[in-house]
């Protein structure tokens, strides 16, 4: 191999990877636009929507609750330990509240939804594709986009903000329990400090992030499921790619939303 061939080949690989990534972004954007266009056009499959509400929202509550309570507790311990270095340990209630509501609550719930819901949606739809159930839907005059994607994406968009709200409260409760039971904070003043410090924009930003993350997590699950390859390997690949893409997009969207809402 000539000396020139190695860098040229590396450059070609980089170019191919970049083009593939851009093509994927384009395909996902088109899929998102199609989904939105189908949301506003009948028919609407109510039963599938109610099932998706249960799957995405209700059944995710335990994992969201457990994630939030442990994170809130750990956050309180970290802030207390860090705060002690410059005698600021009293700010634990305020920092736990703002940390959970503005950042950790939405991001952790988003990532847990990506792990639990995106993977499940991608695997389910990919299996349906492999077993020709998607083709069967089409031959039965049912648009798979309307029947499978729209109910799930709508359920994600509507329920994840609620999960984020619940996660925020449980996270703050985790901090409260650790602070009052282990660190010696007064219960009444902890609650008062938390409530006094939090502002409406903090809560609204949390819910907006939840809605966006819910949309991303469910949309990506549906997209990779619908575009899965053949066989067990195809289903596995679709699931893996869906979780990885949804997680990255959620973190990227979090940065963009935080910049827009709090950047100034």
């Amino acid at each position, binding site marked *: 191999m000539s000396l020139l061939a190695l860098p040229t080949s590396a450059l070609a690989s980089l170019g191919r990877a970049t083009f593939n990534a851009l093509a994927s972004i384009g395909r996902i954007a088109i899929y998102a636009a199609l989904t939105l266009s189908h949301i506003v056009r009948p*028919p609407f499959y109510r039963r599938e929507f109610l*099932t998706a509400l249960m799957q995405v929202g209700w059944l995710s509550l335990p994992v969201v609750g457990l994630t939030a309570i442990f994170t809130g507790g750990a956050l309180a311990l970290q802030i207390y330990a860090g705060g002690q270095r410059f005698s600021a340990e009293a700010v634990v209630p305020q920092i736990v509240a703002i940390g959970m509501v503005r950042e950790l609550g939405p991001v952790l719930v988003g990532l847990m939804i990506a792990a639990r819901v995106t993977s499940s949606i991608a695997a389910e739809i990919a299996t*349906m594709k492999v*077993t*020709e*159930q998607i*083709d*069967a839907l*089409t*031959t*039965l*005059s*049912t648009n798979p986009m309307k029947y499978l994607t729209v109910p799930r994406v709508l359920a994600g968009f509507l329920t994840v903000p609620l999960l984020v709200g619940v996660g925020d409260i449980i996270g703050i409760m985790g901090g409260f329990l650790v602070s009052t039971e282990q660190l010696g904070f007064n219960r009444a003043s902890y609650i008062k400090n938390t409530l006094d410090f939090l502002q409406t924009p903090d809560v609204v930003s949390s819910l907006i992030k939840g809605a966006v993350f819910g949309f991303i997590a469910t949309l990506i699950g549906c997209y990779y499921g619908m575009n899965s390859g053949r066989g067990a390997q195809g289903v596995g690949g679709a699931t893996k790619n869906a979780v990885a893409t949804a997680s990255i997009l959620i973190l990227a969207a979090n940065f963009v939303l935080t910049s827009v809402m709090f950047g100034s």
Partner: protein
Amino acid sequence: MIELSRVAKSFGKNHVLRGVNLTIPRGQSMVVIGGSGTGKSVLLKSILGLVTPDSGRITLEGADVREANRDAFLARFGMLFQGGALFDSLKVWENVAFRLMRGATKLPKDEARAIAIEKLRRVGLKPETVDMFPGELSGGMQKRVGLARAIAAEPEIIFFDEPTTGLDPIMSGVINALIREIVTEMGATAMTITHDMSSVRAIADRVAMLHDGLIRWTGLVSDMDQADDPYLQQFIHGRADGPIESVR
């Protein structure tokens, strides 16, 4: 009548269909035979619009299928998929009544359920199966449910994709006999793709052999054994030697 004229389809460098010409007369049962990977499923899916051909024309009663109203077009078809393709999350009767409970001609739930039960009875399934889920049924029973779903809305045209794959010989015979009976009693146009010769002899009025992306032979099932096409003869007799390459 369904007519395919010079239909071609490639996937990358793989030219699956290379200009297929085929006519399926109204009210007849056409069986397309051919080895694995010869494009039988692609041919069937091209007619339904599940795969878009690269070139050629497919018409139904003279009208180009690409220009037809999609819902109205698909409402004329019923399809039995190779693996059944039943919806796991729905009960057996809901699978059968799927089309009946949706779309422009949506029926009330009770009426749709009654029709589903009747169709399940027609394919030999007992009432106990009605409220079961597909995962609780054997392969043969799933095929029957798939068949009941294909005929539930009494379509004019029914497609069968490898109807006996994965079934034991006795169950294959039962499914073949059911398909023949149902197609005859409904007066439907049928197209079956298979490489099971017992299905061909039980189901077909006419046979077409697909090889290397082209229809090599087509004619009445009664003429098949006397045909002098070496490809057809090798295939129907299952010979390893002949013009069709076989890997050993």
